[in-house]
């Protein structure tokens, strides 16, 4: 029975869900003002106008919810893309959506729109994500092979990165350049329910598009021809993963900045726990992505960073060594 539960991943998923709730609670407690359990309970269940309630409900809740949505999107789409491309090095960045969303944000900052409206950056970033997805679909339409898809994605990504450099190149004000760089390092600071209502629907839509791709990804373990003869509609599978990633990660980057490494590292961490079957990686990767995102966000608020630490930096600083460790540990089975 226990073996069965372990095999199916229920035990892992239940544990990760428990950890997720625990970390969410921690994320509500720590910050510039630390709250204890009693204050948390008062903030959640007590009157809405107490200082604790305002801190938790207005400041920390949207931040926690965004961290969960963003981390889950990056983790899930990372696992799905690695399965689709059958490549353990794939991450949501390969389809070019992250760089394109960053380009949108950088343009919003360059044109001074960010000062006019707080939603200017996310709206333009999302426009960038959509534009890149549209170009990808045009370039790699019809019978696109996986290779065409990756190459088109890398091309779009390089183009967007070059355009970002160009915009920075033409920005004469060093403060503006710094604002751009800081945005790209990623952050959940000062995010409100406006950001959540803007990005949330696209993120959830992306999840819905990607739901149930696990069976097809499992069949793809045997190669495209075998998957086809197991009754998998490969063209549909490909577009579901790409579109789902574009929607959820595009919206994520729009409000959090380009937070790297989650999509790459999380599936590997899950593999170390439950094995390589692509379908079984999906849900745990979403949970673990959300947990890591919240943990990294908590770290950015701690005094050690003097309030200067950015989310993307924390993630990469933690993620890269973890990644190296996993590579070292699993080098036998990767042969």
């Amino acid at each position, binding site marked *: 029975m226990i073996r069965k539960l372990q095999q*199916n991943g229920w035990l892992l998923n239940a544990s990760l869900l428990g950890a997720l709730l625990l970390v969410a609670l921690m994320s509500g407690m720590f910050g510039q003002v630390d709250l204890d359990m009693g204050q948390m309970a008062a903030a959640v269940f007590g009157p809405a106008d107490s200082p604790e309630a305002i801190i938790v409900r207005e400041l920390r809740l949207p931040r926690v919810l965004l961290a969960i949505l963003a981390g889950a999107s990056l983790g899930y789409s990372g696992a799905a893309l690695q399965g689709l491309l*059958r490549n353990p090095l794939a991450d949501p960045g390969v389809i070019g959506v992250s760089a394109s969303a960053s380009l949108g944000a950088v343009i919003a900052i360059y044109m001074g729109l960010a000062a006019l409206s707080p939603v200017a950056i996310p709206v333009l970033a999302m426009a960038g994500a959509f534009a890149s997805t549209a170009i990808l679909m045009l370039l790699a339409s019809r019978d696109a092979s996986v290779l065409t898809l990756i190459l088109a994605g890398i091309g779009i990504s390089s183009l967007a990165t070059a355009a970002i450099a160009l915009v920075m190149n033409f920005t004469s004000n060093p403060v503006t350049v710094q604002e751009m760089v800081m945005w790209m390092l990623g952050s959940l600071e000062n995010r409100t329910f406006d950001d959540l209502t803007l990005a949330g629907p696209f993120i959830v839509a992306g999840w819905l598009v990607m739901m*149930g791709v*696990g*069976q*097809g990804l*499992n*069949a*793809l*373990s*045997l*190669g495209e*021809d*075998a998957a*086809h*003869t*197991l*009754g*998998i*509609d490969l063209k549909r599978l490909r577009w579901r993963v790409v579109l789902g990633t574009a929607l959820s990660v595009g919206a994520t980057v729009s409000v959090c900045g380009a937070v790297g490494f989650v999509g790459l590292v999380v599936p590997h961490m899950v593999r170390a726990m439950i*094995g*390589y*079957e*692509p379908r079984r990686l999906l849900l745990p990767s979403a949970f673990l992505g959300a947990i890591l995102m919240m943990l990294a966000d908590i770290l950015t608020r701690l005094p050690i960073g003097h309030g200067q630490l950015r989310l993307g930096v924390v993630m990469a600083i933690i993620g890269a060594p973890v990644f190296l460790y996993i590579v070292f540990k699993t080098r036998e*089975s*990767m*042969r």
Partner: protein
Amino acid sequence: MNGLHISGLSVTLGDKAILRDVSFTVEPGQVVGLIGANGAGKSTALKAVLGIVEPTAGNIRIGEQDVAALSPRERAKKLSYVPQGAPVHWPLTVERLVGLGRTPHLTPWQDISAADEAIVQRVLIETDSWHLRDRLATTLSGGERSRVLLARTMAVGAPFMLADEPTASLDPLHQLQVMDIMRGQASCGAGVLLVLHDLSFALRYCDRLVLLHGGGVLASGTPADVLTDAHLETAFGVKVARWSDGGEQFLAPHAAKGV
């Protein structure tokens, strides 16, 4: 009747005609060998039957049912496939890998049931790979791996099984094992269609042969009808030696044509 009927099959890739008007039938209980020189169109013929390659003309029927009209899942239940040199991209356990063969019978949300597991167990035993069930598929030797991939295909339980050079890159013992498994599938009522390079196997294991040459059918019928000196010289450009041992016929190429 309920055979797999291929009629008038043509495939053009780019502006090159790969297959021209190929017709043959695989009856249940038969092993049919598809033979021909490299580039004769054997693999393309299999892929066109499976819908991996879009035929430019012709149709494929199972009994009266047009295969093109079936959904991918329904087609997958009727035609199973062993690709040539099949890859395994992730280190899955043998048991889970063979279980992937049950995919066409499941909804996208289902995992394999106890009944599916019983089928997986049976095909693992039939292919002499039960002892490998907990091994990672990426750690298997070439012979073990091809048996396991064969078991994966058998797990589909399709009435027709197609295999592209299932004996390629195997040592003699494993070649014999694989051919015996194929024969066993046919004696259980499946129709088996094989792409083969070994003419001796084609002679001994197949009920019928289809000899492709330049994208068309040069000859089809019983092995004795197809494997004539004239046909082999035309299709392969070789002369063959023939002998019999213990009542079994053997055949091997021994010289290029005109030597």
